[in-house]
């Protein structure tokens, strides 16, 4: 299941849905939440805007879900990504994988967030005290 939305999501609600939907078949659910930081390159971040490519975004996320399901033995996959204006501390992204065993769920979860960062057409722009700037892709950032 993939979702692109402006609104916040409730990780508790999402996880409970995965639990109940996969009750019995899944023995493990691993999830990841990405959040907006308040500091980047020693600039204080006031706001962050997330731009995306409507249409291609959904295709890219669906492709990640497909590849993830092919590669690991999963009972469920969730990818939720927010767009629009966010503030430090806000949730940006949620990925979760449910599987019979934890190893598969851990690997799948890590693969999904790593791949999302390189393949899904989202762009972050930070509003700082030193002006606005687009986030670059130097190793270890994002």
């Amino acid at each position, binding site marked *: 299941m993939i979702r692109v939305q402006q609104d916040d999501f409730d990780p508790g609600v999402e996880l409970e849905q995965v639990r109940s939907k996969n009750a019995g078949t899944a023995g493990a659910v691993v999830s990841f939440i990405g959040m907006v930081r308040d500091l980047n390159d020693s600039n204080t971040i006031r706001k962050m805007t997330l731009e995306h*490519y409507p*249409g*291609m975004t959904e295709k890219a996320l669906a492709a990640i879900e497909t590849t993830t399901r092919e590669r690991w033995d999963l009972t469920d996959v969730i990818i939720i990504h927010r767009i629009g204006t966010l503030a430090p501390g806000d949730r940006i992204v949620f990925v979760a994988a449910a599987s019979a065993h934890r190893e598969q769920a851990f690997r799948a979860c890590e693969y999904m967030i790593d791949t*999302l960062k390189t393949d899904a057409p989202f762009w972050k722009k930070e509003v700082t005290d030193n002006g606005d700037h687009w986030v*670059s892709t130097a190793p270890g950032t994002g």
Partner: protein
Amino acid sequence: MVQLRFFASLRETLGVGDEQVELPDGITDIAALIGWLQQRDETWRTTLGDSRLHVAINQTIVKPDCPVSDGDEVALFPPVTGG
């Protein structure tokens, strides 16, 4: 006609988000299309000359030698930074 789309820093630097262009004779792949757009002025030349430029045709990432034809949606954008 080809539908051009520019995103993020590219959209801001070039000052255009969406544009329809008629492909001139001889422009049959992405590299040629980019070269043709670069002739517009210095800003276009340097911005589209960035080696990290990403290109998607009909919402799928492609390489510069990918053919482009009438009716395609061609998007140009910087490396993605989501997640």
